[in-house]
């Protein structure tokens, strides 16, 4: 049912209820008033007839005195005198109602006509001392017709009022839903144009409609936001897939070429053959590194809060440093625990990835260059662990040339390698670091170490950033 019909119908129902209540009350009041009037007439008649003269005249003359025709000319009022043996007198045209049995008011009816009856016992008795009952009656016809007229009037007025109310409700409903119709048109426009940036006007109608419009706008905003994010994610992954394909194709192509050379030339000199095999192995390593980094990135993206556990950070860092040291025996990696943090809430595996990449990065890029007297090509790496009241911090310092300030943002991009880097890393190491820092609600800062090398520091809250990091990509499960 439309809103308009509802408004019209409900106003009609309310009006009907009002009219009926009013009518019934009014009719009851009028009926009571009319009857009270009749009763008064009957009582006066009783008083008049009960007077000694009138009484005698009634009995002796056997006809009603003139004044007994009633006080009201429009009203028939009859009188009867009754003794124990029966009727002794009744006025002309007295209706055929039963003889009285007691005193007081009653209602009687004959042939569809209603009669109001009053029976009294006047003080005057017959000469032999026998008591007399005086019965008086008046027709209710006048009352009935008054009430019928009133009923007709009320019904007519009521019907008119109800109709008017219905019409009024309908018109009012039409006016009320006009802003809604406007809102509907705006909403339809959004779905037709698929333009999520459209907003519906919010100051056009009554406050209820404006609130609806605001809700609609909020919903549109959410949807637009979601769509934008999805689009961005799609763009990123398209670009990323392209990058991955390129990153994998390059070493594969070079491997293919090298293997083809080997296959076609069984008689290659040993040095040349060894060089080619070494090359193939290096390319294969690069492929594996890239794949592993991609796997870890994907894992980081799928990380959930239940991976976080209370962890002894000093223990974890010590283990990673020891393992990296065995992997790069030529580098010097030292651990400097300034203040050992209390047990912190972290994802241990993710944090190992973070630290491993930082240290690996420092070892591969952190060797001093162009200094005649230094241990050329050997990196000196210092891992320091510290904390304050709210955050732990992990810094890795190397002995290399540092990272130029204009490159500090760029190195966090996927497959980006430092511009003056000769070594071929996967280009994903610092991406992993940034991802893990973000997961832990922390941040990465690159600056210069006192010796000119690069210093990459990660600071994150002790409680794992649960609920505190807005930018965290972590889906809390």
């Amino acid at each position, binding site marked *: 049912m439309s809103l308009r019909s509802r408004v019209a119908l409900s106003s009609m129902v309310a009006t009907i209820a009002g009219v009926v209540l009013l009518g019934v009350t009014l009719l009851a009041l009028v009926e009571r008033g009319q009857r009270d009037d009749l009763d008064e007439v009957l009582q006066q008649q009783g008083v008049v007839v009960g007077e000694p003269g009138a009484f005698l005249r009634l009995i002796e003359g056997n006809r009603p005195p003139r004044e007994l025709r009633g006080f009201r000319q429009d009203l028939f009022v009859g009188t009867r005198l009754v003794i124990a043996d029966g009727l002794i007198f009744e006025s002309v045209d007295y209706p055929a109602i039963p003889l009285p049995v007691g005193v007081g008011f009653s209602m009687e009816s004959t042939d569809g006509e209603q009669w109001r009856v009053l029976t009294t016992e006047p003080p005057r008795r017959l000469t032999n001392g026998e008591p007399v009952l005086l019965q008086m009656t008046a027709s209710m016809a006048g009352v009935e017709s008054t009430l019928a007229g009133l009923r007709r009037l009320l019904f007519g007025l009521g019907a008119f009022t109800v109709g008017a109310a219905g019409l009024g409700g309908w018109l009012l409903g039409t006016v009320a839903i006009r802003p809604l119709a406007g809102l509907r048109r705006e909403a339809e426009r959004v779905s037709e144009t698929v333009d999520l940036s459209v907003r519906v006007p919010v100051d056009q109608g009554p406050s209820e409609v404006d609130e609806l419009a605001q809700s609609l706008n909020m919903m549109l905003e959410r949807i637009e936001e979601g769509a934008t994010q999805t689009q961005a994610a799609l763009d990123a992954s398209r670009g990323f897939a392209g990058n991955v394909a390129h990153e994998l194709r390059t070493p594969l192509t070079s491997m293919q070429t090298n293997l083809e050379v080997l296959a076609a030339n069984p008689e290659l000199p040993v040095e040349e053959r060894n060089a080619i095999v070494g090359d193939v192995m290096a390319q294969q390593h690069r492929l*594996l590194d890239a794949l*592993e980094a991609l*796997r870890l990135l994907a*894992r980081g993206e799928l990380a959930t809060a239940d991976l976080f556990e209370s962890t002894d950070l*000093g*223990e974890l860092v*010590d*283990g990673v*440093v*020891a*393992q990296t040291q*065995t*992997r790069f*025996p030529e580098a010097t990696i*030292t*651990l400097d*625990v300034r203040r050992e943090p209390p047990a912190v809430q972290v994802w241990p*595996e993710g944090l190992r990835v973070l630290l491993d990449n930082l240290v690996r990065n420092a070892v591969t890029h952190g060797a001093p260059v162009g200094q005649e007297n230094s241990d050329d090509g050997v990196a000196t790496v210092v891992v320091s662990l510290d904390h304050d009241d709210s955050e732990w911090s992990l810094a890795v310092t190397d002995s290399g040339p540092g990272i130029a300030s204009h490159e500090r943002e760029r190195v966090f991009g996927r497959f980006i390698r430092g511009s003056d880097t000769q070594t071929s890393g996967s280009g994903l190491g610092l991406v992993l670091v940034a991802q893990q820092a973000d997961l832990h609600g922390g941040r990465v800062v690159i600056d210069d170490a006192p010796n000119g090398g690069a210093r990459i520091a990660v600071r994150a809250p002790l409680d794992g950033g649960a609920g505190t990091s807005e930018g965290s990509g972590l889906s809390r499960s």
Partner: protein
Amino acid sequence: MLVVDDDPAIITALERGFRVEGFAVRSASGGVAALREVELRSPDVMVLDINMPDLDGVSVTRTLRANGEDVPICVVSANDEVSHRVAALEAGADDYMVKPFALPELVARLRALLRRAGAASKGDGEVIEVGDLMVDPARRVARRGKREMGLTRREFDLLEVLARNDGIVLSRSQLLERVWGYDFEIDSNVVDVFVGYLRRKLEVGGEPRLIQTVHGVGFVLRP
């Protein structure tokens, strides 16, 4: 030696590589076949893949150890099976390597495990007691207080070495050499992993920490 992997390409490559190194190699293409092979021929050392369709490496290890079979087992796994690898070591495997691995390193580790397996059988009978810890090398039983700990062989060996040297800090490479027989540097956190297991079993009743980490140096057992 027994090589277990469900991928024929890996089996072929490993067989070739190990033969060149002078091992007598047999292979099994699944967990069930591996168990049968161990029963029939009792290999001296096993390379066991974790992820196999019929019966995985963890179950194979558990079954073998439950049957009292103490052949040294090196599990190999892809890197995204960390939890399985951990489960395999807990089930009693001796070492793990991550695919892809360098063959020379796997060979070196297997040789060391073989040597170690020969030496380990003759434990000396002297009971070691440090604080509330008791290690009995002859019966291969370890107790903390009154509680007997169920240790795998490698856990027991590690605890024994640490307990014999109580108060002395042992570096990871020293532990690798004395417990696993690796007298060469390896890129692995196997010591850390086993120290983790040991600590868990030592502290299960809420006892204070026995095995301490000394940053940048190694581990020490100190009551």
